[in-house]
């Protein structure tokens, strides 16, 4: 247990520093949200209608940024070898790595999500739900993204490959989260979409580490 806590601390610290860490992701997120009004037009009514969905899609893209490095560095510098040679199952190691990724990148992005949605013209009441959706969705993005990152180990331009593998898997959480936010903004029942988002995140946490560990073993051999 203390091993896993130490690993979580290390992974979070490394993810925080990796390629600028959360600042880059949040900066990218802010950039995309500022771009939208420039491209679509700045009429508040039109923007407010798409605000929740747009903020949500931008979040999914921003959480892709740091995924590339999740396993790549450890694979190149031999840390993955050392993590492997331990009584701790590789599946558990992968789970902790993704949690670290989520703490360092998903959580800061979740803090930025309500700001982005409201600045695009969403009602302030949407703020808490946007935060909750982003937090839960971030978990799904980290664990599903980890699969893509592990699968593209050893490939040249692995980051691009990760994005191509992962984007289709991001579709369900984007639909569920976007649906919940849209329903809330329209005054409709929103819990269904939110629950499905949670279910998808839990599924990703359950299945993701097994797939990641298998992909890592394959890359090491």
């Amino acid at each position, binding site marked *: 247990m203390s091993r896993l806590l130490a*690993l979580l601390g290390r992974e979070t610290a*490394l993810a925080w520093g990796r390629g600028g860490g959360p600042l880059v992701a949040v900066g990218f997120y802010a950039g995309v949200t500022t771009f939208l009004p420039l491209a679509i037009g700045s009429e508040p009514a039109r923007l407010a209608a798409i605000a929740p969905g747009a903020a949500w899609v931008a979040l999914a893209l921003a959480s892709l940024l740091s995924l590339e490095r999740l396993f790549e560095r450890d694979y190149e510098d*031999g840390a993955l070898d050392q993590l492997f*040679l331990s*009584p701790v199952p590789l599946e558990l190691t992968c789970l902790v790595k993704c949690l670290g990724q989520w703490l360092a990148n998903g959580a800061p992005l979740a803090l930025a999500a309500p700001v982005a949605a409201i600045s695009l013209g969403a009602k302030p009441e949407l703020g808490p739900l946007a935060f909750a959706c982003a937090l839960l969705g971030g978990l799904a993005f980290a664990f599903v993204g980890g699969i893509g990152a592990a699968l593209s180990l050893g490939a040249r331009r692995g980051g691009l490959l990760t994005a191509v593998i992962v984007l289709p898997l991001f579709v369900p959480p984007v639909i569920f989260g976007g649906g919940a936010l849209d329903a809330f903004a329209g005054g409709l029942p929103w819990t269904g979409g939110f629950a499905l988002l949670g279910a998808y995140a839990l599924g990703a946490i359950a299945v993701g580490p097994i797939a990641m560990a298998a992909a890592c073993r394959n890359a090491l*051999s």
Partner: protein
Amino acid sequence: MRRRTRVGKSWGDGVITQLVLEDTAIRRGGRLLFEGVSLELRAGQACALTGPNGSGKTSLLRAVAGFVRLEAGAIRFGAVEAEEARGGGLHIVGHADGLKPARTAAEELAFWTGWCGGTEASARAAAETLELQTLLPLEVRRLSAGQRRRLAMARLLAAPRALWLLDEPLSPLDARWREAFGGLMRRHLDGGGLILAAVHDPLPIPTVGLDLPA
């Protein structure tokens, strides 16, 4: 049934007392690196693995560690099952040392010691033996190749495991540290340890030879 034997001092989990390679062959990228390689190493013995560049020395080490699959043959660890042996019975130290350039030597030593099952006290003792104390506050990127290798080797001492797989252990070290590491290897063997080392220059300890053909 798993049996555990204790030798000399107390090691970590899965005490390896024997390493046996039976007619092993490894294929990498479609090319057969070697075949029919056998070895029997007992507690207290070291093996110097030699061969020209590209003959498969590193691949053989990685096969023993469980990373590379064998094309043929088998690797056994005496009474210890392979999974247990690899999950805490052996160390591998090579060029890719897993140390993060942006973290301090102290942080890395503490983490890897804990991860491999050592204690704070054992980490301190290892740092003292390898004269790392003054380097500990530095970021890993500030260390020279030899200093960095010593930091990686601190794992070997901080978390005792019976089998050491070493890839070119001496190459970045200066004359004094080659000598000193020879002493550490001797101590490890005296305590019932095993060493399989890929080398170009002879090791400063008595070894069994295993030469891979070109």
